[in-house]
């Protein structure tokens, strides 16, 4: 097991390093030219530009710049070229909203998917199949920003049920906090719930045919106990691993697309604004850190799988 973990961590580290080099090179390749020009402003003299080049190290060879940039990112010294703020402290400040968004939405769709999946599997029938298919299809076909805009327009602007902007943190007012996050949660949850319930349903149906389920029934356990303790437990494992990756995917996807819509000042909104300003450093940091999160979660899931299933670590 220890060998497996070490091997997995090494391959994770290699992937992370390559990702960071690749994204760095991509952004450096922006032919827009020297970032010093942008930092210096319109009427800068050649001396001023040179000063900035020296200060930020733009005149150094590319590998030195790479090391310097990585060092800046991981020691909290990365600075936005266009806005001048510290990227890391801005990220830390914005992260809680995005994490709340992702946690709330993912628990919502996970909980709903367990309910729908179990009912769909127990009451096996054509209707459940079709319903889940349609729901899953709508989920993969619906752009979150459009779904969010429709919900926002009809439920907030027209019906006035939910607040429109001005996010309130949990500490300030839990009720308001919940109302502000409710629509974004629903928006993201609708996208995933169909797919998750469909996967869970087919997992449950597969597990129901296992021998140990028959044994559990034969020894006289109640159907409910068999379902919850024996079937559901095993059926949930693959779902949880999907969930880990989609959680990271929300921060690098859904959040960017919907946070600005709902006026949540999270990492997604920061990225959205930075794209508009072509603020390269912020996008670079977000891409690198989010990809690291995905790679890390994938490794954790693999290790968990190997722990749960010895066949994997021995292969």
């Amino acid at each position: 097991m220890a060998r497996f973990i070490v091997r997995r961590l090494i391959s994770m580290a290699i992937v992370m390093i390559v990702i960071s080099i690749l994204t760095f090179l991509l952004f450096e390749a922006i032919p827009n030219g020297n970032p010093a020009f942008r930092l210096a402003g319109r009427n800068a003299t050649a001396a001023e530009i040179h000063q900035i080049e020296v200060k930020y190290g733009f005149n150094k060879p590319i590998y030195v710049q790479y090391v310097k940039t990585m060092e800046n990112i991981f020691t909290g010294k990365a600075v936005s070229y266009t806005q001048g703020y510290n990227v890391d402290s801005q990220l830390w400040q914005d992260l809680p909203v995005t994490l709340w968004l992702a946690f709330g939405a993912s628990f919502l769709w996970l909980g709903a998917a367990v309910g729908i999946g179990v009912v769909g599997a127990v009451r096996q029938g054509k209707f459940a199949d079709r319903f889940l298919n349609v729901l899953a299809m709508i989920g993969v076909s619906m752009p979150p920003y459009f779904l969010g805009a429709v919900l926002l327009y009809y439920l907030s602007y027209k019906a006035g049920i939910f607040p429109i902007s001005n996010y309130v943190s949990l500490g300030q007012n839990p009720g308001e906090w919940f109302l502000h996050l409710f629509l974004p949660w629903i928006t993201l949850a609708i996208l995933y719930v169909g797919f998750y319930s469909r996967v869970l349903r087919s997992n449950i149906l597969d597990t129901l045919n296992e021998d140990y389920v028959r044994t559990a029934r034969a020894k006289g356990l109640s159907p409910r106990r068999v379902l919850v303790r024996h079937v559901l437990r095993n059926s949930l494992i693959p779902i949880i691993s999907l969930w880990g990756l989609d959680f990271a995917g929300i921060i690098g996807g859904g959040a960017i697309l919907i946070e600005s819509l709902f006026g949540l000042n999270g990492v997604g909104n920061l990225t959205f604004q930075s794209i508009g300003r072509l603020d390269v450093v912020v996008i670079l940091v977000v891409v690198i850190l989010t990809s690291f999160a995905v790679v890390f979660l994938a490794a954790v899931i693999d290790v968990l799988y190997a722990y749960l299933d010895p066949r994997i670590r021995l292969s």
Partner: protein
Amino acid sequence: MSTSSPRETAGTELTLDLESGALEEGLDLGPGASPWRLAWRRLRRNHTALFFGLVFLLIVVLCLLAPVYSHDIAHRSPDVGNITGTVKVGGKTKDIVSATGIPIGPTWDFSKFFLGADSNGRDTAVRLLYGGRNSLLIGAEATVLTMVIAVVLGLIAGYFRGMIDGVISRCMDILWAIPALLLGITLGTMIAVGGIGPIKGDHLWIPSIVIGVVYIPYVAKPIRGQVLQLRERDFIDAARQQGLSHTRIMFGEILPNLSSTIVVFIPLILANAILLEAGLSYLGVGVQAPAPSWGNMISQGLQFIPAAFSDVLSPGIMLVLAVLSMNLFGDGVRDALDPRSKIRIDH
């Protein structure tokens, strides 16, 4: 990342079992019915898939007719606005864009602002069709790019194995580790500014190339897995004994056996590419203004929420309809060709 997380195994054990399908239900077509005929018959019986395939076709035809609508019915160009103009609706004269900047809503009259105007006084219906043309074209170009590169990479990696496979597979792993939207944003920001070589940054090929690259690993990995299995089969041995070149074996012997997988992937990639294009254009790194796309029309419409919400609704509905119908059609194609449903695209 050679260990098996559930996503990876989903693709690599892919075998298309056309023969067993033939045994089950091909009897009344005669023993010689080809797998393709059987699949076509399964698809023909799937009325939902056919219906949505037709819906998509209808959207394509409508969007191709954009110039006709623009010249002969609406008499308005998609790019030229008219902020100060007025239009007669039901006998009353109305401003196209009001003094406060709110554009006119739908008139339901094909000859003038059927779906209203945008904040620049441009006809939304005209832009909707031209935008659809851009979105669909980019989706199609990106799909072709993805499929060609992914199939070639998958063939090379699976056929030669060893070092070459290692390099290609690790590259795919790395592309795959970056969430699709973020990768699109990275590539989009990078080349939207300066372009690639002779292609300018606001050219429509830019989003096609970006999206085409993003989806390569999603196709190349399962193709590679299938090639790894196919290369061990007897007919490949036979081809080798005959002295065929590697290229002939890869493209003449193995490639035809991948055709059903490729056909299953095309509609799924197309639907995803259209959706990603809209997302990137919504964020401002896809189709660049003034060229319309459903994605950037939604983002423009949102600037005026809650006024002129129809400018968000109309491109949004078209987008969902196009992507949903392609997904449902693709689902039918998959059911017909790959009854065990092993092929799918992860997000």
